[in-house]
């Protein structure tokens, strides 16, 4: 009687093994991507880099990658703020406008208004914090409208986007401040050599911002609350999280990040112009989405957005080096966005 019993046992065991194996390859990929949403974007980055290196031997060189990093520093920095907002299932269309407004505030205050009775500008140590405060105030206005007036973030920031653009144009009367920038405001445009790489301090500053945010999101209660609010706002509220306070803090921190991004902008273009940064809202959303963060909130990683921003930079740069027309570059990035969101939907469907 022992024999059949043993085989019975193995049969059950086999059935269990088969049940585990029944998760097909695609399901396993789905499960892995679900756990690590940035993996797909990292894979796209790797695949794109290898592909582009076949088309142009100059692509996979330290100097070219240094260039790409400098090009993505601004979008990358703004995308960091955009990420924490999107993690709460929000969106910020006013990010670029906030960045430009605070950069113009800094530049205008430092420069003063020569010839209009205000000869001397302000000290940079007053102007710079005030510029940052303007960014935080912009974020606070968005946060107030989202949490207290209870408007959808899309509508709120569509409105404030126009308001901040208008304020910027009023402040500058449509002109670019012509006077030389304060040296401190140009800090993030300086070059540093890191081995074979030659990058700007702005790139390092952006990476430092990402590292800090990654730490905060991963290891603090605030970070966990940001995810919880985006994941299921009612569950978060019932669990005793002050949902409005979390949302408000997210918009204010994002505003600060946009203002700090403006500092990178000034360093890179060496002037504060009301016209830079008009595309930053859509570009930053692109980076966040390609980086695997879900527009429905609660899922994603901050470093995914950095990878997303670099992917966009790599595509632009690689396609240019391969001699592809600008129109097709736009086409490629458009397809990439649709691909990224499709992957996100596919991953989410797995676990409903």
């Amino acid at each position, binding site marked *: 009687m022992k024999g059949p019993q043993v085989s019975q046992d193995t049969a059950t065991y086999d059935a269990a093994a088969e049940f585990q194996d029944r998760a097909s390859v695609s399901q396993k990929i789905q499960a892995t991507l679900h756990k690590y949403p940035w993996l797909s974007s990292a894979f796209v980055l790797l695949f794109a880099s290898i592909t582009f290196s076949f088309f142009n031997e100059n692509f996979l060189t330290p100097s070219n990658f240094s260039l790409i990093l400098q090009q993505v520093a601004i979008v990358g920095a703004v995308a960091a703020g955009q990420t924490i907002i999107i993690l709460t299932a929000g969106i910020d269309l006013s990010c670029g406008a906030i960045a430009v407004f605070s950069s113009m505030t800094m530049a205008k205050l430092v420069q003063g208004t020569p010839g209009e009775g205000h000869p001397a500008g302000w000290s940079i140590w007053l102007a710079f914090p005030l510029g940052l405060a303007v960014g935080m105030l912009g974020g606070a206005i968005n946060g107030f409208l989202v949490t207290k007036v209870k408007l959808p973030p899309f509508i709120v920031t569509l409105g404030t986007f126009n308001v901040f653009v208008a304020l910027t144009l009023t402040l500058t009367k449509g002109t670019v401040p012509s006077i030389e920038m304060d040296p401190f405001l140009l800090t993030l445009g300086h070059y540093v050599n890191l081995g074979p790489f030659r990058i700007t301090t702005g790139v390092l500053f952006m990476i430092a911002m990402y590292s800090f945010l990654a730490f905060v999101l991963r*290891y*603090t*209660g*605030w970070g*966990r*609350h940001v*995810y*919880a609010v985006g*994941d*299921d706002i*009612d*569950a*978060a*509220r*019932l*669990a*005793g*999280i*002050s949902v409005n306070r979390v949302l408000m803090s997210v918009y204010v921190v994002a505003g600060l990040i946009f203002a700090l991004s403006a500092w990178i902008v000034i360093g890179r273009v060496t002037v504060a112009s009301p016209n830079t940064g008009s595309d930053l809202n859509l570009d930053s959303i692109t980076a966040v989405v390609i980086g695997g963060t879900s527009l429905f909130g*609660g*899922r994603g990683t901050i470093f995914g957005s950095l990878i997303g921003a670099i992917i966009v930079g790599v595509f632009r740069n690689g396609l240019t080096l391969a001699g592809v027309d600008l129109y097709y570059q736009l086409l490629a990035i458009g397809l990439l966005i649709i691909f990224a969101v499709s992957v996100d939907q596919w991953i989410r469907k797995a*676990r*409903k």
Partner: protein
Amino acid sequence: MSKAPILQAVGVTKNYGRVIALDGADLELFPGEVLAVVGDNGAGKSTLIKCLSGAEIPDEGQIILDGAQVSFKRPQDGRHAGIETVYQTLAVAPALDIASNLYLGREMRKSGPLGSIFRMLDSSGMRKAAKEHISALGIGTIQNISQAVETLSGGQRQAVAVARAAAFGQKLIILDEPTAALGVRESRQVLKLIESLRDRGMPVILISHNMPQVFEVADRIQVQRLGKRAAVVTPKTHSMNDVVAIMTGAMTVDKKDQALSPVR
């Protein structure tokens, strides 16, 4: 057993515009008992427990917890006072893991400067404590405490929500339709959880539509009708048909036949 109720509601009234949800409702919960609250739709069950837990502010009436009058403004207030509520809608964040959900809103920080200055969470400590809470309730089916809640079945999710309430509830636990979204086997799990809560001496208020389940676990059954308490009976003195009759107004129970004092 002491005769003083741990939680008492006296003449609680709540209007939503012209709709009268509660019209002077009373309730008494005694230590160590499971009190079921049943009633037809719109009888004011949910509004009553929302007033008790702090999710709604009553227009009139008193809520007395442990002999002292309380007035909760937010769910957090009720929670701080020791009342834990498990909501019908499974108030868990699906993408977060079990340990994070258990400690959501009251995370543990690391000791020393890592916690006080860098505000770092004690993730391993929370995982360890969460595991203890889960196994204390005899929920053996959950193997991995760092599993995302969305990978769990409905019953397991409900178990996480109940475990959270049990872990932090100091005075009492309110369960709002805990089995409404669950299958037969999962409901059984939750009923077992309720029994193990009672065995540990935790008073429970159970809102339910499911008569067999109510009769299985409840010590006393409060029947709500038209925003008021119609009667309080016990599974021993009255049948399911009686309770339904009271619910619909077809039957009234004389005050002296009601179970207004603790039966356990």
